[in-house]
């Protein structure tokens, strides 16, 4: 029996889709059987980031409306032998084409076969969000070190806490710019975690390589040399239950050790 994790944020453009693609990739690299679901009906792009766009035959709406079987709609990623699959969203309808009950049924069915179901949630708190969280039992909230993104993350955490079937959400802080954080122009990690008061599961540095690789349809997690890739792989390991220390921010003197100390509140 697998585990369904919804990746959400409230605000758009903070990196939900990139995070979904890379966590899926990183988990698949660890040998887990992963199914990614894109619930952003009408504005899908998880398929593009994964480079699977031209293999889509059926989509999520086809499955819930009974036009095809689930396994017909799943797109296999050939880079990971039988470990990574994508259930793409429809591009032609809108969010109301699916309801939460249908999503729950679908996710429950997929849980029988896969270790992890990663659900990519659309921005906003309307129908699309409700569909995305319906089948999940875990949630990861993605935010960036900006006040507006943190505010929306706060809102979404409030909503997630009301869902009884979902465990307390975990936090990923994305697009950290080392020089801005150390100069105080950006919210720092401590500010964000104390403000939102949920567990931090990972931080990801802002990296040009992320944009380059997603444009090429190759998730950055495949490239072992980039900082962002290591960050995503670390998050995947934490999802699997390993305890991995947080990455050090930049080349400054705050090493891994002081970061851990900070984590435990030792100044």
């Amino acid at each position, binding site marked *: 029996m697998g585990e369904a994790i919804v990746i959400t944020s409230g605000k758009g453009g903070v990196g939900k889709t990139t995070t979904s693609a890379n966590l899926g990739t990183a988990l698949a690299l660890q040998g887990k059987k992963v199914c990614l679901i894109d619930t952003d009906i009408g504005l899908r792009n998880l398929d593009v980031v994964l480079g699977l766009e031209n293999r889509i035959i059926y989509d999520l709406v086809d499955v819930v409306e009974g036009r095809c079987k689930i396994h017909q709609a799943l797109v296999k990623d050939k880079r990971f032998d039988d470990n990574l699959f994508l259930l793409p969203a429809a591009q032609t309808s809108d969010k109301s084409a699916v309801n939460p009950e249908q999503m729950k049924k679908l996710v429950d069915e997929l849980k029988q076969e896969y270790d992890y179901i990663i659900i990519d949630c659309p921005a906003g708190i309307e129908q699309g969000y409700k569909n995305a969280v319906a089948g999940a039992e875990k949630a990861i909230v993605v935010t960036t070190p900006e006040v507006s993104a943190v*505010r929306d993350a706060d*809102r979404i955490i409030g909503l997630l806490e009301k869902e009884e079937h979902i465990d307390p959400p975990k936090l990923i802080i994305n697009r950290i710019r080392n020089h801005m954080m150390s100069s105080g122009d950006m919210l720092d990690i401590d500010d964000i975690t104390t403000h939102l008061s949920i567990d931090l599961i990972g931080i990801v540095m802002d990296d040009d390589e992320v944009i380059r690789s997603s444009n090429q349809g190759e998730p950055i997690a495949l490239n072992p040399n980039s900082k962002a890739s290591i960050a995503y792989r670390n998050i995947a390991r934490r999802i699997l239950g390993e305890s991995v220390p947080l990455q050090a921010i930049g080349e400054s003197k705050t090493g891994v050790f002081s970061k851990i100390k900070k984590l435990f509140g030792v100044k």
Partner: protein
Amino acid sequence: MKKTHNVMIKGTKDGLTLHLNDQCSYLELKEELEEKLSIHHIEVEESPLISVKIQLGNRYLTAEQEEELKELVRHKRNLVVGDITSNVITKEEANKLQEVNDIFSITSIVRSGQILEVPGDLLLVGDVNPGGTVLAGGNIFILGALKGIAHAGVNGMREAVIAASVMIPSQLRIADCLNRAPDHYNKEDHHEMECAYIDDSNHIVIDRLQVLKHLRPNINRVKGGY
């Protein structure tokens, strides 16, 4: 059979008091009240308004019935109804009354978009994040950071206070007063252990928690103990 008087009118310094019998039917009462008021009808032009208190004894009146009586009195002469008092209230009203005097302790984080409302005093163990709102009929005490909106004394209790361990609100409201936060909080200022109240000039001011002891001694619920 001797007719008992269901309506007794007494004059006091502050006006008239109508003592209404609580043993007769409401209809009888209404009729007699109407009659009594007509008998004593003396039309004096430009006579000053007289305030009337109505005492119902052990009778319970619905809101409509109260309105009916008020209308009756107002209609007859240059009288104004001050208040209607009764020894009885419904269970519902009694519960409400009790709730208003209760302290509601809640441990939670009030996040953006969430509203937490209580009828009495609020004791919140947790933060109020920006975009979150807490409302209380009485005082608000927050063991945590107040970064959102707090509204104390929503039903007009101007003596209500707002106290927080960390006071960096986006807005403070007490009864009908409103106070907006400065556009920027200085990061060096800590704003710890502060309270807000309405001062003599009708403005919400923020001060150290310790001043409450002198300004609002009514917050104390327990007598003695030291």
